[in-house]
C-alpha cells in the first residue's frame, strides 16, 4: 500500500447542527489526478479544508504518508499540501511576482534572504504559466481570470506533493483553463504529484481525471476510475438533472450534455 499518499478515515464534520460530511472514507494514491464532483453545499470545499488542516473534523482522522495529520506541524503541512482556493480576491496592491513569492515562504526562514534556488523556482513558475507580462503588475489591477492564474501559480510555486484545486479555473477562458490543466496534468505524470480538484465542469473533469469522487449531502455516491463512474446513472443521481453521455472523443474520454 505504498502508493496511498492520503487516507481519509470516517470523516464527519458539522457546521452547527448541520452535518456537512458524513463518515467519509477514501484513499488517494500518489501520482493520480482526482476529481471531486457534487452539487453546491455537498461538502467538497469542507473536505479540502480538512485536508489542509484549516478545519478540524468532529470525528475521524486523516493520514498523509501514513502519518496522522495531527502530528504534522503547520510548516510541514505547508510543505506537503497546497491549495488553489475558490476565492481569489486580494485586497492589497501586491505585485504578481510578490504574490507568487508567498508560495515559497514555507521554505525560507523568517528574516533570511530567499536564495538562488527559490528565485529559480519562482522564475520558472512565472514562465511556465505565461505570467511574464503580468509579473510586475499589481494584482488589484488584473481581471478575474488573470488573478486566478496568479493565485494558481502561487500554489504551484509551493511545490508540494499534494495539490488541491477548488474550482481553480472557474474564471479563466477555455484556452487558459486547458493550458493550466495540461500543465498540472504533466506535474502528475512527470513528478508523481497527486491532485485533488473540485470541478463544476464535468466534461473537463472527465478529460483530466484518472479517478472521480461523487459527493452528495456529505455522502460519497460513487468513487472509482473515471471510465467506470462517469456514467448517466451516477451523474443523474448526484445532481438530480437528466443527462446524456455521448461518444468517446478522440482521446477516448467520455463527455456529457445536460438533458433539460
Amino acid at each position: 500500500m505504498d502508493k496511498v499518499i492520503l487516507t481519509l478515515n470516517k470523516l464527519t464534520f458539522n457546521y452547527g447542527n448541520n452535518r456537512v460530511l458524513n463518515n467519509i472514507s477514501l484513499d488517494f494514491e500518489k501520482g493520480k489526478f482526482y476529481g471531486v464532483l457534487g452539487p453546491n453545499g455537498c461538502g467538497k470545499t469542507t473536505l479540502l479544508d480538512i485536508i489542509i488542516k484549516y478545519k478540524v473534523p468532529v470525528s475521524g482522522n486523516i493520514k498523509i504518508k501514513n502519518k496522522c495529520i495531527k502530528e504534522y506541524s503547520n510548516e510541514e503541512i505547508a510543505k506537503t499540501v497546497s491549495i488553489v482556493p475558490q476565492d481569489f480576491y486580494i485586497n492589497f496592491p501586491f505585485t504578481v511576482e510578490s504574490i507568487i513569492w508567498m508560495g515559497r515562504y514555507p521554505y525560507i526562514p523568517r528574516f533570511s534572504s530567499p536564495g538562488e534556488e527559490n528565485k529559480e523556482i519562482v522564475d520558472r513558475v512565472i514562465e511556465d504559466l505565461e505570467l511574464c507580462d503580468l509579473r510586475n503588475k499589481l494584482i488589484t489591477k488584473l481581471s478575474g481570470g488573470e488573478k486566478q492564474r496568479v493565485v494558481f501559480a502561487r500554489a504551484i510555486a509551493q511545490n508540494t506533493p499534494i495539490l488541491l484545486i477548488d474550482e481553480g479555473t472557474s474564471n479563466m477562458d477555455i484556452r487558459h483553463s486547458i493550458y493550466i490543466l495540461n500543465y498540472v496534468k504533466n506535474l502528475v505524470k512527470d513528478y508523481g504529484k497527486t491532485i485533488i480538484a473540485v470541478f463544476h465542469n464535468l466534461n473537463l473533469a472527465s478529460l483530466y481525471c484518472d479517478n472521480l469522487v461523487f459527493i452528495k449531502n456529505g455522502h460519497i455516491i460513487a468513487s472509482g476510475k473515471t471510465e467506470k463512474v462517469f456514467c448517466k446513472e451516477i451523474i443523474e443521481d448526484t445532481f438530480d438533472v437528466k443527462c446524456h453521455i455521448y461518444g468517446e472523443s478522440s482521446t477516448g474520454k467520455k463527455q456529457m450534455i445536460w438533458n433539460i
Partner: protein
Amino acid sequence: MPMARKNRASSYWGGPTFLILFLVLIVSLIISTGKGYIKISPGTVVDILYRGIIGELPDKGTNLEINYYVIWQVRLPRILTAMVVGGSLSMAGVIFQAILVNPLADPYTLGVSAGAAFGASIALLLNIPFLGIYSVSIFAFFGALLTLVAVIFLSSNSGDISSNNLILSGIIVSAILAACISFIKYIADERVSVIIFWLMGSFNSKTWIEFFVVSISTFIGFLISFYFSRDINLMTLGDRSASALGISPSRLRIILLITASMITAVSVSVSGIIGFVGLVVPHLMRFIIGPDNRKLLPASTLAGAVILLWADTITRAFLPREIPIGVLTALIGGPFFCFIFKRRKNIGFYG
C-alpha cells in the same frame, strides 16, 4: 502604473526609504524643538541635547540654562510623546488593515477609541482624585481593554474569529459606547468642556513618564508585529490559503489584535483620540514602498512619527492659538484621504 515597484523579496531591506525617513525624523525633531514661544536655533538645540545626554548642566543664570530647561523639561517630553504616539498609531493602522483584510480599517475600527473615550469620560465626570493626574489615562486604558474583550467575545464563533465578525462587533460596541458618552456629556454640566477637550486629543504638558509608558508599549508592539510581518502578508490571500501556507489565521489574528489594540489603548489614554493618522499613513507608505508588511510596518512607524510630530509642532508653535491635535489631523488627513480614495481605481489600489 504610477511608480514601478520592485518587490523582489530578495531586496526587502533595500532602498533608501528607511534611511531617508530616519534622517527626516531626526532633522524634524531638532527643528521642532527650536520652535515655540522661545525661539532656539538648531545649533543650540543640538548643543543642549548633547549636554543633556552626557549630563553636563549649563552654567547657572545664563540664557543657555533657561533654554536647557525649556527643552528638557517642557518641549522634549511633549515632542517625543507626539512622535511615539504617531508611530504607534500608524503601526496599529497597518496591523488592523492587515488582520481585518480591509484597507479602510484603522486603529479605531474595533471601538478601542470609543472604549478609551468612555473610560476617560467617566474619570473626568467623577473627577476621581485618588490616582492623581494619571487617573484619566488609567480609566481610558481600562475602558479600551474592556471594549476589546467585549468585541472579541462578540465576534468569536466556536474558536474562529473572522474579520467581518470583528468589524461588525466593533461597530456595534462603538455605537453603544458613543451613546454612553453622549449621556455622560449630557449629565456632566460644566465639566462637559473638559470631556470634549480631552476627546479631541492633545500633547499639552506631557511628561517623561507618559513618554516612557508609550515608548515601552510601542517598542513591544513593534517587536511582536514585526516578528509576524511576513505571516501578515499571507493573510491577504485569505484564511484558507494562509492556512495551507503554514500559519493559523485565527491565532495570528488574535495575537495581533491584542497587540495592536494594546498599543492603541496606551496611545489614546496618553494623548486622547487622534484620528486619521492610523488610516492615512499606512496608505501613504503603501504608495511609496508597496504593501509588503516587512517594509510597511517599520516605514509606517517612522512616517507616522514624522507626521504627528509636525502636526503637533504646527498647533504648538505656528498657529496663533493652539487647536486640538485631533481636529488638526482630521482637517489635514480627511481631505487627503478623500483624494486617495477618489483616485484609487486609477492607481490600482483596492480593486
